[in-house]
């Protein structure tokens, strides 16, 4: 699985960071980013999926399932 943040949509709710701090980062202005090229380690798959389904802005884009 590979994801990216649509930074036009991201408004800094930080739900992704709260759920998977190992994978998502948030800068001082609230904009999220993903670790590396966005490829999700197997160990984090279910939690990253949870983050995708909790973003109020639908800002986490699944690039590859």
């Amino acid at each position, binding site marked *: 699985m590979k994801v990216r943040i649509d930074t036009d949509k991201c408004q800094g*709710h930080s739900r992704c960071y709260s759920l998977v701090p190992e994978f998502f980062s*948030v800068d001082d202005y*609230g904009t999220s980013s993903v670790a590396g090229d966005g490829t999700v380690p197997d160990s984090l798959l279910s939690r990253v999926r*949870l983050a995708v389904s*909790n973003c*109020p*802005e639908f800002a986490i884009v699944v690039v590859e399932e």
Partner: protein
Amino acid sequence: MTMTPEHTAAGTIEAGTIDWTTDYDVLDAEFVANPYPFFDDLRQQCPVPHSNRWGGSWMPTTYADVSAVAHDIGHFSSQEVGVIPTQVDGDDPFPAGLPPISSDPPEHTWARRLLLPWFSHHRVEYYETVTRDLCRRLIQGFVEDGRADAAVDYAQQIPVRIIAQILGVPLGMADDFTGWVRDVLEFAHEKERQARGRDHIVAFFVNALEERRLDPKDDLISELLHTEVEGAPVPDGHVLGIAALTLIAGVDTTWSGIGSALWHLATHAEDRRRLVAEPELMPFAIEELLRAYSPVTMARIVTEDVEFAGCPMHAGDKVLLSFPAANRDPSVFPDADKVIIDRQQNRHVAFGVGIHRCAGSNLARMELRVAVEEWLARIPEFELEEGGEVTWAGGQVRGPRSIPVVF
């Protein structure tokens, strides 16, 4: 919902006699105490009702419509965000409004960037220790009594003291700040009382600005006074507005969230005991309590005539953004009216959605979580006091104002 032709003065109709699809009253006592059945009925019968009360407004009640209005900043401006209209005689004491909450882009963009770093995860981590110490001291003050008012003695005492530190203003004035903010938000429908609160806030911050200009400290006001935007200092009106907003938006809101959470836990023993037994559920519980008891409703002003969800909205009309209604929409949240303490998928919009997402949401979440954690650590078993009266405030911010509990 029944019809009565006899309604003249706003806010004087008894609950149950109003046709809510054409005449809803956001300050109706029954609605304030439990708005959710009203939202459920409206969603089915008339999902975007209009009412002439309190200056007139539309009130979308579905998640999709609330989110659509919040995202359509072209048609729905933030120039007036008050649920109850502010009545000002003479010059507006906030000439620049309360940026960024009352701003549209491009002003919104730079004003928000000035504020956001003060509420980053990094800063909030620092305030977590301060908040935890404060919560422990408050609990220590009443834990031996076997009873307390969870709203007055606890929830109400927490956010104001953290905000005071961020603003760099005296903690000893916490009760004054609380009173002023209540005047402005909770008593917005009482013109003189709202003006009194507003005048106190303006006078306080005008003075604080002068002090910081001469003697800068490590606080938000000092930084704003010494920051430039595109080569020019931030205008004083904006500094005043941003500082006042931080106080007004950072006190009543979070305190209401903490109060509602404790009210829920006092009245739902199974959820309380599960949370005590399984503290790892806390992050999910906090989001669920935020969803189920979202405190804040905002407003927008229609910029040009537009048909929205089949409704003919006109330029200048007010539209309420009822995040509490959106978050109870059963088409988005299964069992929307049930608090599911470990709800996994929870795309709630308690902090708004779109470019005006609450700038202080990281801080509010931390305060809510720490307040609940510390309470449950010392007082795992508690319930409403028999004969005690739980009271609620509503309008812009909904939450309990008194929660007598025994333990």
